[in-house]
């Protein structure tokens, strides 16, 4: 198998070693994500998988993708996952014996069998794309760097898709901000019978930028007083803070 693999893809022995090690890391992480009883451990396993994939990207000469993988996925998205896990107080060992859905285990088994059959069927009947030529050209065409080529294709050929994606992300952020800010307005209205304007937050209101961070910040600053020296009151999403406290209390007293 090994000589065949090497012959068909022009890979060298170091390439193969890198691939095997990274594949092992990726699979370990992936299994950890679904099998950890503690959700923080699961999130850490996800980071492991992302790192493995990043190294595989470097192996494929896609250095820029590798860096972005680490910066965006490991550095931002999983950090936000962790924030949510820590603040909703679900960072305890889960009781695996309890079944929230009746009959989910047999159903899962059936689905696994179907999926495995499908994969084996596909593997047996269709041909592999491994080793095929890239659609968008080589990652090092014309002696240009990988970043240069990626930028070229993103800002010329695929500009439309790129801009649409950017618009979608902006809409998602704005939507999240709107949803996250609503409770604070509802709570503020009865206090002094005047309509709370959308921008009525104090200067420390980070909700505009990123709601999960803002929620965490609100909970984190609680200790030093969310009533600042000027008497400005920052809109703390009451539901979020309350739950965060519950979570922490459970951590301190329970786990």
């Amino acid at each position: 198998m090994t000589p065949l693999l090497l012959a068909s893809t022009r890979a060298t022995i170091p390439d193969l070693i890198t691939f095997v090690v990274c594949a092992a890391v990726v699979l370990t992480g992936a299994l950890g994500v679904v099998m950890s009883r503690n959700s923080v451990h699961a999130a850490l396993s996800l980071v492991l998988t992302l790192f493995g994939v990043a190294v595989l990207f470097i192996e494929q000469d896609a250095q820029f993708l590798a860096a972005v993988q680490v910066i965006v996925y490991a550095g931002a998205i999983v950090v936000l996952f962790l924030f949510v896990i820590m603040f909703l107080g679900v960072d305890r060992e889960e009781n695996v014996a309890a079944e929230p859905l009746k009959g989910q285990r047999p159903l899962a088994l059936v689905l696994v069998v179907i999926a495995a059959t499908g994969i084996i069927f596909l593997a047996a009947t269709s041909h592999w794309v491994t080793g095929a030529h890239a659609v968008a050209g080589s990652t090092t065409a014309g002696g240009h760097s990988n970043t240069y080529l990626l930028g070229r294709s993103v800002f010329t050929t695929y500009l439309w898709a790129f801009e649409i994606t950017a618009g979608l992300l902006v809409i998602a952020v704005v939507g999240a901000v709107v949803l996250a800010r609503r409770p604070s307005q509802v709570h503020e209205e009865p206090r002094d019978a005047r309509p709370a304007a959308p921008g009525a937050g104090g200067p420390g209101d980070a909700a505009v930028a990123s709601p999960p961070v803002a929620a965490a910040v609100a909970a984190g600053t609680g200790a030093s007083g969310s009533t600042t020296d000027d008497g400005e009151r920052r809109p703390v999403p009451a539901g979020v803070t309350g739950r965060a406290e519950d979570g922490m209390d459970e951590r301190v007293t329970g786990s």
Partner: protein
Amino acid sequence: MTGTLLALTTHGDPLYAHGVGWFVWVVVLIKVLVAFAVLLVSVMLMIWFERKVISDMQSRIGPNRAGPWGLLQTLADGTKLFFKEDLLPERSDRFVFKLAPYLSLVPALLIFTVVPVGGIVTIAGHPFELQVADPPIGILVVLAMSAVAVYGVMLAGWSSGSKYPLLGSVRASAQMISYEAALGIVVVTVVLVTGSLSTRAMVESQSAAFWDWNVIRLGIVPFLLFLTAITAELTRPPFDLTEAESELVGGFHTEYSSIRFALFFLAEFMNVITMSAVVVTLFFGGPDGPVPHLPTFDVWFPTVWFLGKVLVFLFIYVWFRAALPRLRYDQLMTLGWKYLIPFSLVWLLGVAGFLVDGWWGLGVIVVGAACAGLLVRAFAIGRGRADQHGSMTALGARLSRPTLVTGSPLAPPIPPAPPSPPARPVTTRPVSGTEGEG
């Protein structure tokens, strides 16, 4: 502002130009070992330097017992910490608790690998760069590693199973994530004028004369933004709320003891050194400087320049610590999100405009200034409303403040519940009670 669009090719270290033989292996190994050793020793000296300088600034003597001028004080402290009992808190998550210090230390070490510390040296006919690694994505490695460094702090606080570390780690990670955005935008500005992500290419593009250093070429603002952002990223004073002793005991490392505690401090000071080196690389030409033509020695002069520049920034960090009071949390977030990010964005667009054409640049600057004015006006309106809004409750807040402070820090003073909800159960319960009885 002269942007040179370099030929965007992959250069890389000339060491690898002729394949990878045993000589290359040896050179790489030596580079790694030397960088590691130098970093560890310089952390030792940095801690001593910080304590000495801050003592001078506060009219004290500082460490003066171990070694000449107290030079070996850090070594003595390290030895002491090493032999202390290693405690694991009962409620900690053991695996993560043990893992966290390394997640802080490893990124600190890795960032230094892409910093060019000198020119090109030739040994036995093989030229190589004085830099551990010169990947084509150089500066992105710095950003990626500073993103990963958040994990160490965050997991240390969480896994301690204790309230103060958790609060400290939440502050720290929120702060690091917030300032990473501004950091990234300023780095993009530098990348624009360099035309490459490689740190070596950045240094080379600044090497013509000292007015080609990015600090001058980009206008001084990006440098100031970057310095602010990385000071926050490092959680150094005045942005050290994460270990505000008066509020949080010690921040995320409260529960740590022995050598794990030492690892956190090692990582912290190593980060100060590597980030100073990154500032020097991005804005001050790295190892660039006038080199006297001396036989065999002129190769090492760039390194001397580099070290000198880094030392200036190390001093500046200590100076910050001695001179500036700690920011309040809302001030920190305001500075990051409302000032640093918009300013760095406008400056980035301005630089991009000037790279295209002078008129474009001027146009972008004018539009950007108008937008910035609108933004500031919007903040002022928001602040004014908040003040009006808060003036009713301000007196009450001031009066109730002492109880808030002395109260349990885990029960954060949530804005006192609006009077109506508690009133509702009181009125409804008798009704339901009578219904139940009758």
